[in-house]
């Protein structure tokens, strides 16, 4: 069973979103996602300052098996990307909810987070997806 922290929100495309104290939203992929991807070998970030739309592609994560799109969980402006991943993509596997974050968004409408799943709903979603 993969780790699903209770304080985060989750997208059906397996990104997590965390509302920070300054009102920005940090985005990464879940433990379940990194496990399914296998060894991550490359990460392609959006540009800082780029406008992204909820449920649209904002980056790519590539493992030895496949290159998969990363979708923005909320609409807004990219204000930071995790440069660490460019040299150490394996951080995504090692610490998906911490140092393995992807990018940070200044959201247009923070209430969009409510449309995402909570931990319990995401756990159930993963469970159903496996069957």
């Amino acid at each position, binding site marked *: 069973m993969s780790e699903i922290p209770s304080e985060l929100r989750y997208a059906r495309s397996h990104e997590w979103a965390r509302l920070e104290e300054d009102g920005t939203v940090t985005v990464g992929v879940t433990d379940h996602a990194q496990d399914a991807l296998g060894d991550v*070998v*490359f990460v*392609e970030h959006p*540009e800082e300052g780029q406008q992204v739309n909820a449920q649209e592609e904002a980056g790519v994560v*590539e*493992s*030895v*098996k*496949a*290159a998969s*799109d990363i979708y923005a969980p909320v609409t807004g402006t990219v204000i930071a990307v995790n440069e660490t991943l460019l040299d150490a993509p394996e951080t995504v596997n090692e610490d998906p909810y911490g140092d393995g974050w992807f990018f940070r968004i200044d959201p247009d409408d923070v209430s969009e987070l409510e449309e995402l799943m909570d931990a319990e709903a995401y756990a159930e979603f993963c469970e159903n997806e496996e069957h």
Partner: protein
Amino acid sequence: MPFIPHTVEEESSMLSEIGVDSIEDLFDEIPSALRAGRLDGVPAGVSEMEMLRRLGERAAADASGVCFLGAGCYDHHIPAAVWDLAARGEFMTAYTPYQAEASQGTLQLIYEYQTMMARLTAMDVSNASVYDGASGLAEAVLMAVRANRKAKSRRVLFAGSVHPNYRKTTETIVSNQGVEIATIPSTDDGRLDMAALEALGDAVALVVQQPNFFGLLEDVDSLADWASARGVLLVAVVNPLTLAVLKPPGQWGEAGADISCGDGQPFGIPMSSGGPSFGFICCRSALVRQMPGRIIGRTLDLEGRPGFTLTLQAREQHIRRGKATSNICTNQGLLVTAATIHLSLLGRAGVRAAALGSAARTRELVAALTAIDGVTERFGGAFFHERALNLPRDADQVVASLLRHGILGGLALGPCFPEDPTMQNCLLVCATEKRTPEEIQRYAAALQECLAA
């Protein structure tokens, strides 16, 4: 691994296993409006005897003679061992299978090929080949557009001295993807006009061919420096044989070319009416994820034994579908096999000898032909193993007359440049290391006779 199609019994057993009545039912989810239906234009089959008769007629219609024709496809010597080995059953069916690591021999061959191509071009990486040089250039242009995220423009600058067929193929493939091609005029001496470059404005990439279509050497160091100073990616189209002598694209200017591509035909591939051939694409490592195709790596297995593995295929179409780096890319497995064997047999010295021999024979040819009254060199300056000549009359007609003397005289340039009437009398000739002094004298005598008639 057997490459035998499944039998009727196997088909019905597979269908019953998954509970489907017919193969047709597997395509149910495709709406009927999107389906092509019956292929009415396909004629009924013919017998083997009939097929051989018809193909024999076609083959006989192909012009034959002593070959002085180049322009992208060259008559080089191919050691008999090349195709004797390449035609072995293990290679003949070569294509990286989807369970790639089960075919270690195929992977090792591609690994060797990629190593040789990267060394020849002095680039970091090579893909496993594409259809031909022209489609390789189109892919290289699309790569450059995807990779150069800083550039606002989608305009690609194309030297007017690039092979016209390569430009046409590239236009066909990229024009529907919002990429604009701007042609840089050539100077009177047949080379890219540096002065005209600046006037063309913003661009994402610059395409230069070395040697260019006329066999001339471009000032690639200056062009590479020009491109890198402006954040323009440099795409180098090269004849790989010439790299045994000329400076490889990875070393052009201060920074080198970003992408190199070209046609592998000079390496063990017969001219055979113009195809099939294979294209190569090499690039710097920073661009590897935009390069279509796959990369093979050498590694150790769990028991520490050496082996080969697919190390980069994550952006191929069986994984990325519509977002793949290319949806018209395959590797030309058998031709790459022949080229790899060819390069292994010739070695560094052999490839260099073929390149230098071709350059030397072409100089002898040019001297013999320009000794004829009215035949002159169209352009001055350095050239490799092709030369454009001015004739005193229409080059197309001269080529037809030479053919009656058993000489494939070259390519008449008029039809390649319909907008330039001065090309009507222009003939592009080439001599490879295979041509003998006697054959060159025969050509000169035949040309003299044709022009006197």
